[in-house]
């Protein structure tokens, strides 16, 4: 599979995601945000980080980058677009995904391992995942997903909620919600299920000797 990682000024998980993609045999290219054309690609990744320092609103300035119009075109043609952390925030600012990511409930940056449960296995991203829960790391200040009732209902009806924060055995409870996200939402898909935005970082869990190797399941599923 061909992938393209876009680098914005202030991206800082661009190398991590590229390393992970390469590890699972994606043919990956890096692309500077000022470019006006996407190379031939199946997957576009908007990486984590602090694009433009998170100044104004997180993701808002990157959403105005030149390359974003191309990313939108790519997604309209059914191409895959994945936004992780700041990438998710950018997808929301571009309007490709609904809702908003507010500051974490406790108003603090959170860096910790969480468990997430895949709540939609129909998308290209998760279809091969057999695990009940995945242990991934989150590291963000604005990951508190919020949307009004109508949007939430729509997300539910269309099966667009991709990931929810849960406990080690898969229970979706308030205790296992790290940032106050409505419905424990950790990631969502668009209606067509080709765009995924999520807060956790699978690219940080791709080594057997590190705290979790559960990123592997995501990349392997995506590849097949």
């Amino acid at each position, binding site marked *: 599979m061909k992938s393209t990682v876009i680098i914005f000024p202030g991206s*800082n998980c661009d*190398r*991590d995601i590229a390393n992970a993609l390469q590890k699972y045999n994606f043919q990956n290219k890096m692309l500077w945000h000022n470019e006006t054309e996407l190379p031939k690609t199946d997957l576009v990744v908007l990486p984590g980080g*602090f694009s433009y*320092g998170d100044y104004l609103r997180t993701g808002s300035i990157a959403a105005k980058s030149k390359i974003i119009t191309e990313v939108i075109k790519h997604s309209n043609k059914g191409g895959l677009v994945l936004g992780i952390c700041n990438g998710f925030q950018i997808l929301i600012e571009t309007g490709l995904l609904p809702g908003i990511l507010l500051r974490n409930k406790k108003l603090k940056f959170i860096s910790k391992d969480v468990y997430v449960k895949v709540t939609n296995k129909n998308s290209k991203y998760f279809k091969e995942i057999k695990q009940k829960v995945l242990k991934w*790391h989150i590291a963000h200040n604005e990951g508190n997903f919020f949307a009004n009732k109508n949007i939430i209902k729509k997300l539910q009806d269309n099966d667009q909620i991709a990931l929810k924060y849960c406990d080690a055995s898969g229970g979706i409870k308030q205790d296992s919600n790290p940032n106050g996200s409505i419905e424990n939402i950790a990631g969502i898909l668009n209606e067509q299920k080709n765009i995924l935005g999520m807060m956790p970082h699978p690219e940080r869990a791709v080594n057997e000797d590190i705290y979790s190797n559960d990123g592997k399941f995501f990349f392997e599923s995506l590849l097949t």
Partner: protein
Amino acid sequence: MKISEKIIKKHGLTLSEYSEINKLMERDPNLLELGLFSAMWNEHCSYKSSKKHLKKLPTKNKKVIQGPGENAGVIDIDDDDAIIFKIESHNHPSFLEPYQGAATGVGGILRDVFTMGARPIANLNVLHFGEPSNSKTKNLLNGVVSGIGGYGNCIGIPTVGGETNFDESYNENILVNAMSIGLAKKNNIFYSKAKGINKPVVYVGSKTGRDGIHGASMASAEFDENSEEKKPTVQVGDPFTEKLLLEACLELMKKNIIISIQDMGAAGLTSSSIEMSSKGNLGIELNLDKVPCRELNMTPYEMMLSESQERMLMILESGKENEAQKIFLKWGLDFSVIGITTNTKNIVLKYKNKEVANVPLKALADKAPVYDRKWISHKLPKKIKKKVNYNGYKIKDIFKKIINHPNICSKKWIWEQYDHTVMADTFIRPGENAAVIRIHGKNKGIATSVDSSPIYCESHPLTGGKQIVCENWRNLVSVGSTPIAITNCLNFGSPEKKEIMGQFVECVQGISDACNYLDFPVVSGNVSFYNETNGRGIKPTPTIGGVGKINNVKKIMTCAFKKENSNIIKIGKTEGHVTQSIFYREVLGIKDGPPPEINLFNEKNNGLTILELIRKELVMAVHDISKGGLIAAISKMCIMGNIGAKIYLPKKLISLHNYVFGEDQSRYLIEVEEKLTNDVQKILEKNGVYSEIVGKTQNNNLELDKEFSISIEDLKREYFNWFDKYLN
């Protein structure tokens, strides 16, 4: 303008220093020139009070590529890899504006590291706040932690370790020491020494504003009631620009264009231009009209002394300016050729076609006065002769108090606000003995830890100095790394008081003794004097940041118990040293008596034995015993592993309290499988290491003989909840 006595004092110079300047220049300096001297001759840049004593520190071993004197120290970690690291203080600004002060502290230390060609791979910090009940402490804690996180998280460097303490001596003068570690290729390290004349001098990064004019002088001045008015010297950090500057510099460094490079830290353009050219024994000429300014009508004085952040000065190969400029423009950063190197051995500043300053570089850089300050030696405090009565102090209550004490309990509340996994190579995270970072794409890694012991250092500076080096060494050993070298940040009160100067001299002596013995040299560091408010100094607080090498990250060791029914073996003898322990000071309120003694032979022998056991894969968990004593160490192993332990008491018991809470040094706890216990004991015997089996791991409860039994859940509550309780 005539230079009056008042102006001289305002520049932090004494009258005798001024007459020395007169002599060196063979005339009166103008105000700008006086500004240059004040920046270069203050304590921060010139080390005038400390130089004589810092010479005692060992700075070399087989692995050291670059010792003190550069932006940071460099060590060899084999293959073609080098590690570049340094720790630095940002105490005064952090007290005035905790968020920005701490943030710019992180920014400054990062630049010190990447200016040498390294990509930063880990940050650490040492924080000392006033006592929790002090009205300022909560805000300072919140501000400093958010500031460190705000900067480090944004740049995308994991913050992997640190130390936080609370003590009343920091009520009006907190300490914020930031350390950064970078990875470079051995054959592509950049130094600050200029070479060759007529080479372009290039300014890159942010524009210059009126930030922090005279910050370096402030950093060397005591606080007083009027410090509120010294306010404009705190700068605002811009981590986004720093990230761009980092990427741009690393991109340029891949090309063969940079001759020398230095960040504009304290005393900004002044110290960078002067240090680079004087190290190269050259002259330098700057045209200040070319300095990118953020505000209108900035004077040469302001440009030279501004401490605006996120700026670098470089000397490039002639004719390569355009190639370099392209890279900086791509990243949206200012790039300006502001001068050239010359052979005059003077710094010449021009502004609006006029020469506005002309000073011999030697006078600025090398002729700063060196003081042999008076100091007095601190005798070892006498032992407490009278038997202390422990009646009414139940072991269980003391134990709970200790693991819930802010200086012992978990600092998770802090480090969860720092991104500690970005870059995806953090193999041991904060909250352990030391952090471990893998060298990306390889099996090897580095271990790192920061430590300080102000209580021991105050009680007996010589012992305290030794102890922090040893504790740091122990932490690095505990995760299975070979300790290589350290950086230090020496935080003290006013060196003009012989009492405090004595603390400094003897702490440095202690550090030196331990470093020499352990072959653990100092490769970089920083001295922060005048940590005083209204004449009251902080406890002497040297901090040590150590780096060790790990050959194979698959073999790293943690302190978490791994399974039930294994033996817990204690390495090193327990004499029951309780004076200056948490038990005596915080529970009994007894502050007399000497700190625990350091035996360097045992330290080294025990540590090397631990390494042997780890490498032979004979142990499952290792933890050093430090503050809080045996029981605090065991409880942490239980908490981290979610496994209980049953602790027996030796037949010949000195005193139960002293046995469990004593802080004797050079001790470790190891977890060993029953069937391997014999093999382990053979090695311990062979190496002449004192050891005893102190207990066994078990399901769920920590039990101390017949004294108490406490569930892991309860332990965790005590260990983890202090910060939440304090802040909510």
